[in-house]
């Protein structure tokens, strides 16, 4: 009985792992294809298509755009979320529960609808499509997340540290910069990092709100119109490698913090 369960478990887990990894393995393997179609038989390995990606100015500029949008929108979302979380956690405000609910409301609405709403409004107000518009959209989706993460980490022991600082004569600004931000650093970092990954991968809002200058997911989408192409495999593999590097970096920083 026990042995049968073991064997069935191993087979089942193996099958699920195979299913989960199948597309990724195919993606990376055929990014090394030497010929023009990313289908069997495998003709590589060759770095030909990675060269093609790096030589493609549209892709490299989209990559830079994506990074800029991700960093700036996450920074904005983290700062706005932190200030609001601090305000709500430390002070009694009338209607606090309702207002906190309002800030987290966008979490319940799909990206498509958020993007459409902004498109309709910008269209009506005569605001042209741009990376800035897409960045605003990314702040909309990430602000509730940042707020929720940081607000949930504002515990009572931090209140006591802040109170001690005030007793010793520190003004609100000094408390904020010298006490609250350092104490909250792990939550701020987690919020910023999560925002980065969501913005970096976001498609539909950027698709609706940008035109010529656009982000990497949208540019990859444009590549798909040419059908199956090893160049798409190559850029996809690069994005994958970049994301894995970010996750490892996060794990490393979080791990070091835990030990420190």
């Amino acid at each position, binding site marked *: 009985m026990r042995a049968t369960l073991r064997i069935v*478990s191993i087979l089942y887990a193996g099958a699920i792992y195979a299913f*989960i*990894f199948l597309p990724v393995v195919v993606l990376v393997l055929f990014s090394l294809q030497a010929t023009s179609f990313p289908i069997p038989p495998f003709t590589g390995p060759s770095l030909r298509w990675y060269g093609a990606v790096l030589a493609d100015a549209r892709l490299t500029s989209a990559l830079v755009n994506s990074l800029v949008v991700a960093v700036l929108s996450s920074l904005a979302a983290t700062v706005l979320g932190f200030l609001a979380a601090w305000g709500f956690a430390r*002070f009694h405000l009338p209607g606090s529960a309702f*207002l906190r609910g309002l800030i987290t409301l966008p979490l319940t609405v799909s990206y498509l609808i958020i993007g459409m709403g902004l498109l309709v409004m910008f269209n009506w107000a005569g605001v042209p499509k741009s990376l800035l518009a897409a960045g605003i*959209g990314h*702040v*909309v989706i990430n602000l509730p997340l940042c707020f929720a993460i940081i607000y949930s980490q504002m515990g009572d022991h931090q209140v006591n540290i802040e109170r001690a600082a005030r007793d010793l004569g520190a003004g609100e600004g000094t408390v904020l910069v010298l006490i609250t931000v350092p104490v909250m650093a792990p939550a701020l970092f987690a919020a910023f990092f999560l925002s980065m990954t969501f913005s970096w*991968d976001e498609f539909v809002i950027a698709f609706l709100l940008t035109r010529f200058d656009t982000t990497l997911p949208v540019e990859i989408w444009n590549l798909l119109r040419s059908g199956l192409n090893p160049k798409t495999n190559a850029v996809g593999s690069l994005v994958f490698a970049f*994301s894995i590097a970010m996750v490892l970096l996060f794990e490393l920083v979080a791990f070091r913090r835990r030990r420190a």
Partner: protein
Amino acid sequence: MAAVGKDGRIIPWALVTPALAFTLVFFVLPFVAMVAVSLTTVQGGGPTFDGYAQFFQNPSYRQALVNSLQVTAIVTAVSILLAYPFAWILAEMVPPQWQRLALMLAVLPFWTSYVVRSYSWLLVLSQNGVVNQALTGSGLLAEPLPMANTRFATVTGFVHFFVMLLTLTIFANLKQLSPSYRKAAADLGAGPIRTFLYVILPLTLPGIMVGAFLTFVLAIGDYITPQILGGNNELLMPQLIMMQIGRRGDFPLASSLAIILMVVVTIAYLACARWLKIERA
């Protein structure tokens, strides 16, 4: 906890106002604008329920909602059925020191870009793709199966994503259960199967419902997976909405359809609300 000094009333509002103002201007206002636009027509004029009427009168529009609901229901059910045993194996059969690694591996493809993940499945399922070549090459099939641009491809792409997501949530759920439940069941004479059916499964049910709701909401609003993998053979709601914006520039109809989709999600939320609350208690 009250503020210090005479500026005590100003500082708290100064802290929360930027986030509130941002949410009002870039979330609430766009939503109001979308509702207003949904009550007009491309030719202008209104207010009219023309966009909503079009949805109810046009059978192909209604079919898109039916397709969306069917695909989402299939995806939710299949994903849970695949992910639950997998999460259970990770939580129960894998030695504790390897569990973190096993789990990290199980969600690694999560970190590929969303667009790229769907494209990868297109590679796997295409006419000359890996699966078809393996099947025809080994003589199992004479002709390649048409798998790309079908509902099967859309469901496969979705299930791939949600198996990873649900494995995470169900694994966390299983690990939260105290081992004393299992010991108590064993003391009372239950075997492993009865323990699972009468103790473990009911205790993880609220967590499963939360995962099911999350799957439903994320899948029904997604445009990328059905567009890349399903193609235009069969339209789902998000595809229909994007088509109104892209090809026809029909914002009123697109807004009406988006609001109908939101209403459907809200109904699903209300249906699950009972379960979502139990989880929190």
